[in-house]
């Protein structure tokens, strides 16, 4: 019978091993992105563009919808709360700060983790199961260069773009509700947003977008390469990829928010 301590030890070692593996994927991807062209083994631009399409462009509608709804909800809650203090006009600053620093990037990251993180883990996992990854290796094509590096680069480009879309949609969503409730024209709401916002507020969201994009890409790829145990294993690792990505995003967000707003 295995003791609790043995099981905990095994799981801890497993987690450390997985962390190390994800880190090595990151370093190897950066190596291929930078050194690949000099070794006549470049990361294909067409693969990066294809990933940008899947990760970014196709996610735009759902990101816009969720961010718009989130912005409107923040306006509803904000106005209801601030009304008690007679400070309804402060809702503009509240929405502008929380969207650009926090919720725009969070919505974009959660959508990408759910949509693309699962798709990436499933795609690499099924390639692993059908020996396509082995086929790449024996053809002299490094799987990290061919599969991971384009995903990582596309994520680093598209996450900030999606974050900016989410910021805009959330502010418009909040603005429409506020303008209807406070009889304030939408243009005035947006103008006031620009007045209160600083570049550093936008930058805060964009830094986070880069970190969250990296986390989603590495967690999804690491889980995809780890798939074993047939169809059941593929489902398990795909689910695990999404759960771990969202958990990592929320924890990283908390750490970021603490250090960036002290």
């Amino acid at each position, binding site marked *: 019978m295995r003791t609790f301590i043995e099981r905990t030890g095994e799981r801890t070692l497993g987690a450390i091993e997985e962390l190390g593996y994800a880190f090595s994927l990151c370093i190897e991807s950066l190596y291929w992105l930078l050194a690949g062209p000099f070794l006549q083994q470049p990361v294909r631009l067409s693969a990066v563009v294809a990933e940008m399409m899947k990760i970014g462009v196709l996610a735009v509608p759902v990101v816009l919808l969720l961010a718009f709804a989130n912005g409107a909800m923040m306006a509803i809650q904000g106005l209801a709360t601030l009304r008690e203090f007679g400070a309804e006009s402060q809702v503009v600053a509240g929405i502008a700060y929380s969207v650009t620093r926090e919720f725009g990037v969070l919505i974009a990251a959660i959508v990408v983790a759910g949509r693309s993180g699962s798709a990436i883990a499933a795609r690499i996992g099924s*390639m692993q199961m059908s020996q*396509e990854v*082995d*086929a790449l*290796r*024996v053809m*002299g094509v490094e799987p990290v260069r061919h599969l991971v590096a384009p995903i990582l680069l596309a994520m680093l480009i598209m996450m900030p773009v999606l974050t900016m879309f989410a910021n805009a949609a959330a502010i418009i969503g909040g603005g429409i509700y506020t303008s209807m409730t406070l009889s304030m024209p939408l243009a005035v709401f947006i103008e006031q947003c620009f007045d209160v916002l600083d570049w550093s507020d936008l930058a805060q969201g964009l830094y986070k977008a880069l970190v969250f994009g990296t986390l989603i890409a590495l967690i999804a790829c690491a889980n995809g390469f780890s798939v074993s145990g047939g169809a059941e294993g593929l489902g398990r690792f795909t689910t695990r990829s999404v759960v771990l990505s969202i958990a990592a995003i929320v924890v990283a967000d908390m750490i970021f928010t603490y250090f960036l707003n002290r």
Partner: protein
Amino acid sequence: MPQAATVTASATPYAIEVEDLVSYYDSRRILDEVSLRVRPGEIMVVMGGSGSGKSTLLRHLLGLNRPAAGRVSLFGADISQASARELYQLRRRMGVSFQNGALFNSMTVEENVAFPLREHTRLDERTIRIMARMKLEVVNLAGFERLMPAQLSGGMIKRAALARALVMDPSLLFFDEPSAGLDPVVSADLDELILRLRDALRVTILVVTHELDSAFRIADRITVLDQGRILITGTVEEVRNSPSERVQNLLNRRSEEIDVDPEEYLRRLTD
């Protein structure tokens, strides 16, 4: 045409050399001091039942597994000691036809065959397409270029995988269970194709299979693996006439009696 790669290699008359190869899966010994030599232009068939270690041996030959002990050399270069660059160059001289084809499901048949050329050469698109179609002609798949792997039959997938394996004009070809899952007629066609390729291209071929008919049809020499050990390596006749009971059991498809210690068996059940 793709350029032949140069790899630091010692002079050797063998295309493949395996010396005292030992491999483990967790604590289980899968290969036990396996030694094997394949001459250039030869068709070597590695035969054995399920769990004999033949797939693990193939993974070592492809450089996908690291040996616990022993040495695997291709064209005189030790692949377990090779640098990433040397391994890259060696792999450009190898073609592999996997058991289930391992075609890239997101690409058409032609894109699959053209993939190694796009990765390793600077040929223009038109030349790449012509070369890919030539290889598809060789394996009798002309006209199927635009189909996706999911639209092909089992035999067609194996032939498309073979076309991809051939496209860089390799010196060494590996087949993993070429007949598995195919009906006898398609399987015999594939065997004929393997023989034709060897004769036309003088390529060294190593086939891993458990199909006796196929093995006897194509092999110059056969190695019989059993429980991680080589029972015999020899010509088809030598293997057929082997006095070894285990070899004869395998050839006559007789299951082996496994000695069971009753006490050990009881302990396993109740532990």
